[in-house]
């Protein structure tokens, strides 16, 4: 196995709030190897974006309280002085966000924003930087980059802006690109273009990508490995093939069943009843137990550990492997009561 590029160990992020300490991320561990594409999936409030911001060092401390370790290329990011971290960001580590308009400065041309990165990290002259920026715009397939470079962000469409963001992130050939819902704000035909672009750039540059999304369709098309998060914890981790063939956590089972399928109408979607627990008041046992149709006494009182069910397939569920659970559903007497 190759040396890990990024190793996150027992990351915990807490924020003070009116109703107590909110634990947004609670003991998250994962690794990323060079060139790998890891998807982090989960719904609002599961901690996926906070995890990404922690890696980028973009959470203000205080109020955020971070514990655990984040090692990137062998260096500890959490204890790194801010100056060194600033040298890393935009160079070895880059990030793109959901809404490109709010991440681009409306008062500067895209050219000056792109060149700034190269002048800051690569010590280039303005002329060199401009040439490199035009070249990068061409690589992200912006038509007529020589003219476009002098445009202001508001003159570009949403898909174009996201391309500019990707160009900016890739200017210094980062080892790791974090993309937080990069296509969520885009129309489906434009999303297809941007995903295709990310795929081809990855195969050219061998940049590792941490892709944060709520869309399991995007996961299936992009990921090598998948991390499913729920209520601040990793509940399942596996290769993309494993997770779609047979998920090993009931939350993932529910999520997959909740997506309407293009191939045909389902009688009923697998709605997951109830709501995500508040980050200040997590249930005592398994955090998913109150919404899980399979939960029993043990699930409600004892928190399950993340354990390896099959080779490389990890799940935080007492009932895993779920094949046995599915088998038990076949026996007529044991139709599970939806929990009350």
């Amino acid at each position: 196995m190759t040396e890990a590029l990024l190793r996150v160990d027992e990351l915990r992020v807490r924020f003070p709030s009116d109703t107590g300490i909110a634990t947004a991320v609670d003991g998250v561990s994962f690794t990323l190897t060079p060139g790998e594409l890891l998807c982090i999936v989960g719904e609002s409030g599961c901690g996926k974006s906070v995890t990404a911001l922690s890696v980028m060092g973009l959470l203000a401390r205080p109020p955020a309280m971070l514990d655990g370790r984040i090692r990137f290329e062998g260096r500890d990011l959490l204890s790194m002085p801010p100056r060194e971290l600033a040298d890393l960001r935009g160079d070895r580590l880059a990030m793109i966000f959901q809404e490109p308009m709010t991440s681009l400065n409306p008062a500067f041309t895209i050219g000056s924003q792109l060149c700034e990165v190269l002048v800051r990290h690569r010590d280039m002259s303005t002329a060199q930087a401009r040439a490199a920026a035009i070249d990068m715009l061409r690589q992200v397939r912006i038509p007529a980059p020589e003219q476009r470079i002098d445009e202001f962000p508001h003159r570009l469409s949403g898909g174009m802006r996201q391309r500019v963001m990707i160009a900016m992130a890739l200017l210094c050939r980062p080892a790791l690109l974090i993309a937080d819902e990069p296509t969520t704000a885009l129309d489906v035909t434009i999303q297809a273009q941007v995903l295709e672009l990310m795929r081809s750039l990855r195969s050219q540059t061998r940049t590792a990508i941490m892709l944060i999304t709520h869309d399991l369709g995007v996961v299936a098309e992009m990921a090598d490995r998948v991390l499913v998060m729920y209520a601040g914890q990793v509940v399942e981790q596996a290769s993309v093939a494993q997770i779609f063939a047979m998920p090993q956590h009931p939350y993932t089972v529910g999520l997959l069943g909740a997506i309407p399928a293009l191939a045909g109408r389902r009688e009923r979607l697998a709605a997951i009843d109830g709501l995500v627990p508040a980050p200040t008041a997590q249930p005592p046992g398994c955090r998913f137990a109150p919404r899980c149709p399979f939960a029993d006494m043990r699930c409600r009182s004892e928190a399950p550990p993340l354990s390896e069910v099959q080779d490389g397939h990890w799940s935080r569920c007492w009932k895993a492997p779920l094949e046995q659970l599915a088998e038990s559903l076949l026996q007529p007497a044991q139709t599970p009561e939806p929990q009350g």
Partner: protein
Amino acid sequence: MSPVGNPDLRKHATGDTPVLDAVNLVKHFPVQQGLFGGSAALVKAVDGVSFAVRAGETFAIVGESGCGKSTVARLVTRLIEPTAGSLRLHGQDLLQADGARLRSLRGRLQMIFQDPYGSLNPRMTVGDMIAEPLMLHRVVPAAQRGTRVCELLDVVGLRAEAATRYAHEFSGGQRQRIAIARALAAQPELIVCDEPVSALDVSIQAQILNLLADLQRQFGLAYLFISHDLAVVRQVADSLGVMYLGRIVETGPSAQLFRTPRHPYTQALLSAVPVPAPGARAQTTALAGDVPSPLAPPTGCHFHTRCPHAIERCRSETPSLQATPDGGMVACLRWQQLPLPRDETRAPAPNPALARLQAAFAAPSGLKSDRIV
């Protein structure tokens, strides 16, 4: 009596008259150009759109941003006035109605929006908000309003206690349930749903889609469902229209349209949707370029600038909707010459063990366990 079903209205619903009949709807918005408002340009947001919604059925309009689908929703509810065209609710002219007549027609036609928080009054209790249409449309005598509010909350899967609370105390999915209860209060026959689940997480989206399906079955409601999400439309729609730059380019029964899409735009849209099954989709870039500005749409067929099959004629000649052998209509000059997309079995056969587990989630009895505490 059920909280929604009104026997008088149900009578109308039988027979062949569609609940809603829109013919040649047109909406042009003038746009000021230049700093001093010189020559006004026209955005043809909706440019001759016709469709019918039948009782107990769902007609969906699907398209990307700027195609005019939300403008159609606003025209149908008369939140804005059309430039031309006709709109009939059970054969009665919606556009000529005003005053009391319009108010009574509006009771039969309700709307829910994408952002439930933006459409709920933050200063009113949930109970008062649901009681308002009861009062306005004189649905029940004043003395029974409280009971009716509780019934409506029950129907959408909320506890009666919700009535005394405010919208901000609820999550997004619960707010959408409140908006649905409020829409149901007026005993409508048609609910216009404008992107009702786009702001919700997948698991909550499924709850709301299941709820809408249950309500439709229970009360014989018709839905005009506006969405950008093709998978959601596949789930809810009986028939649909695909819009591009203000025009319907293809329409037909849902099962047929998803199996044999005829218009190159529909084909491209369908092939662009990521499928939640690794390796299921042929990963070809669907379409190049962006949607052109609606201020200056391309001549002829609006889609010719992005269409892989466009020929010279497409630049000059505007295609009209023509019937296809499988019961739909398509607006493309070349549809008869175009190959149908290979019927990729896009979703592999589901793992039986997984399907059994998912069935436990789908159990209808689960619907009401979302009661708020």
